[in-house]
């Protein structure tokens, strides 16, 4: 099945990546041709095709992905930026795969956030054959080189995926640690991977926080549940904080559903110009004017929002379009600074 996934052999990668092919396919580059034949045939961009979709619980969706050869792989516990196109627009969200490190397929379980664009889209519309992008594998939440004798994995909600990846990796490698896997969900119906965990040869405890029917443990984390162990925890901040109160050395990762709180009033926020290392206090004018007032000389043209010369990367913060009034708060997006004013704190790659 390799022929379906990527320019398969290293020979074909070498040919496709050669300077001659680059010249012949210029100026667009070879990927822009191969992707027409198969959308995951790209050397420059890691992409994956969805090969299976399961909706195990009412508030999650599990995607099995076959990544192309460009995908570098990941270490158990790390996260990947997943690119999904919705209504013609690319959106990127960070997910931690749940599969064992080194396996051919990548498994994502996406928990639905109320009002979350990407998670609700995937829950409703993900299907076999869909193509997603995979970028920026990263994260320090990984297994240590020296494995401790006693390990406890503690997770809440969709925070199960990185610790499950760690557990599956340990099992695949063969280990002799004593392992406890403690997972919290709202109810038995919403507990991801219940069946898979039951089949594993480790001690598994389920905690159901809203509907306690069938729960193994109380709704609050207690150290007595896992005793003396090296703890890996991933879940909402309240759970991670509770774990760290008792296990200050616990390795942990917390996820927070994105919340965009846009201040009512423009002005007064801090504009950070990342590349020049300066900043300014927002006076309400356009970012271009304020950048110039701060002594910067960003590229610009029409100064009325039509020519796109001034576009620059906004790494964080919200801006208001001075012509349409639309507020845009996504991180890592390009904005026309001549017609954008800050709403609160903004960081620009200028």
């Amino acid at each position, binding site marked *: 099945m390799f022929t379906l996934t990527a320019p398969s052999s290293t020979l074909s990668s070498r040919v496709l990546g050669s300077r*001659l092919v680059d*010249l*012949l396919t*210029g*100026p*667009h580059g070879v990927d*822009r*041709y191969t992707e*027409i034949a198969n959308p995951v045939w790209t050397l420059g961009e890691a992409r994956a095709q969805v090969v299976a979709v399961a909706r195990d619980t009412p508030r999650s969706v599990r995607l099995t992905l076959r990544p192309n050869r460009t995908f570098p792989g990941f270490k158990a516990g790390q996260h990947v930026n997943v690119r999904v*196109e919705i*209504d*013609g*627009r*690319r*959106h990127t969200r960070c997910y931690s795969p749940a599969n064992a490190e080194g396996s051919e397929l990548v498994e994502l379980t996406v928990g639905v956030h109320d009002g979350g664009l990407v998670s609700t889209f995937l829950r409703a519309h993900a299907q076999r054959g869909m193509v997603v992008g995979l970028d920026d594998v990263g994260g320090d939440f990984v297994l240590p080189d020296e494995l401790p004798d006693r390990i406890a994995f503690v997770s809440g909600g969709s925070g199960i995926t990185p610790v499950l990846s760690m557990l599956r990796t340990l099992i695949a490698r063969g280990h002799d640690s004593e392992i406890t896997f403690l997972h919290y969900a709202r109810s038995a119906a919403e507990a991801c991977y219940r069946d898979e965990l039951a089949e594993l040869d480790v001690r598994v405890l389920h905690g159901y926080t809203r509907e306690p029917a069938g729960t193994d443990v109380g709704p609050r984390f207690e150290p007595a549940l896992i005793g003396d162990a090296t703890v890996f925890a991933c879940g909402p901040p309240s759970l991670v904080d509770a774990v760290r109160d008792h296990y200050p050395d616990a390795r942990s990762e917390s996820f927070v559903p994105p919340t965009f709180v846009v201040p009512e009033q423009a002005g007064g926020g801090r504009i950070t110009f990342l590349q020049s290392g300066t900043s300014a206090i927002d006076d309400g004018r356009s970012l271009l004017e304020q950048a110039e007032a701060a002594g910067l000389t960003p590229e610009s*043209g*029409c100064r*009325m929002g*039509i*020519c*796109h*010369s001034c*576009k620059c990367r906004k790494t964080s913060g919200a801006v208001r379009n001075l*012509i*349409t009034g639309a507020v845009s708060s996504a991180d890592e*997006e*390009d904005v026309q600074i001549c017609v954008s004013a800050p709403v609160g704190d903004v960081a620009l790659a200028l």
Partner: protein
Amino acid sequence: MTEMTLTDEQFEAFGAELDALKERMLADLGERDAAYIRRIIKAQRALEVGGRATLMAGVLPPAWVAGTTMLALSKILDNMEIGHNVMHGQYDWMKDPALSSRGFEWDTACPGDQWRHSHNYMHHTHTNIVGKDRDIGYGILRMSEEEPWRPYYLGNPLYALLLATFFQYGVALHDLETERIAAGEVKLAEKRDLLRSIGRKVRRQTLKDYVAFPLLAGPFAPFVLAGNVTANLTRNLWSFMIIFCGHFPDGTHEFSEEETEDETRGEWYYRQILGSANLTGGKLFHILSGNLSHQIEHHLFPDIPAHRYAEMAVEVREICGRYGIPYNSGPLHRQFGTVVRKITRLALPDRGRGSGAVAAEPPTRDLELAVA
């Protein structure tokens, strides 16, 4: 020269109507537009690969004609409906780096980043302002009575023919401002980086079309070379024709720097309409023109996906009608005919400056509304 015919309040209301139309369109962008541009790209890539493959058998005349035609169509689509429009930022909202205005590069001699400056900013902001908009004659031709006649301009028709033939290089050298270098206003040394980047792009394009692909055909190299030259030439002539129909047919207006100082958004819109002309035709014609056949809508909304211009044109026309603003539109042969006539007429000194010039170019009936 144009005299403003609307009051300040009318200009403001007029501008607000066009702003509202744009906002409505922006809010509606989505899957439909993404699917459209990807379909066009797919067609372009298929024509390109098919054309180049067919040309390998170019020793057979039908294969040569078919291959050359496909390659020419591919280059036209690449430059017009894809490249020009993507580089305007029409698809930036998709956040796809392959369709981003900042990153896109097209299959022609002009480097994309220079085009973004000379075209998106200089031409689109200063449309038809004599002395600021270098698209008026590309620094080579005399396309306006405002440009004083010199004996050099006797060659106007010849220069136009040469520019059309080598249009991709004309476009590439656009930002070099050769006429300002000749006039001593800028030093060639200041343009060194610009020239280098043009050189790099031209070298790669030349290597690809005129060396690498012909050599791949082995003994049939001359047929591939001839096909590639013809495809590039066809694209050059076609894009020259479409682009010169955008701002130079009879009835389009020019403006002076003084009269456009401190102009409001409404007045800017007004200038875009008076300075542009549309072409009528079928759907395929619009696509092959990169929808520059809707030059008026393109100049009003340069960053709205161009395939939307046809539907926007209905409303723009209606708005113009209500404000008594002329809307210049006609078939290619008629519009281009008046462009050719202008190129030829302006080769000669103006007869009795003012009256003579106007007599030679009577305003169309539409325009009497706006020209005092």
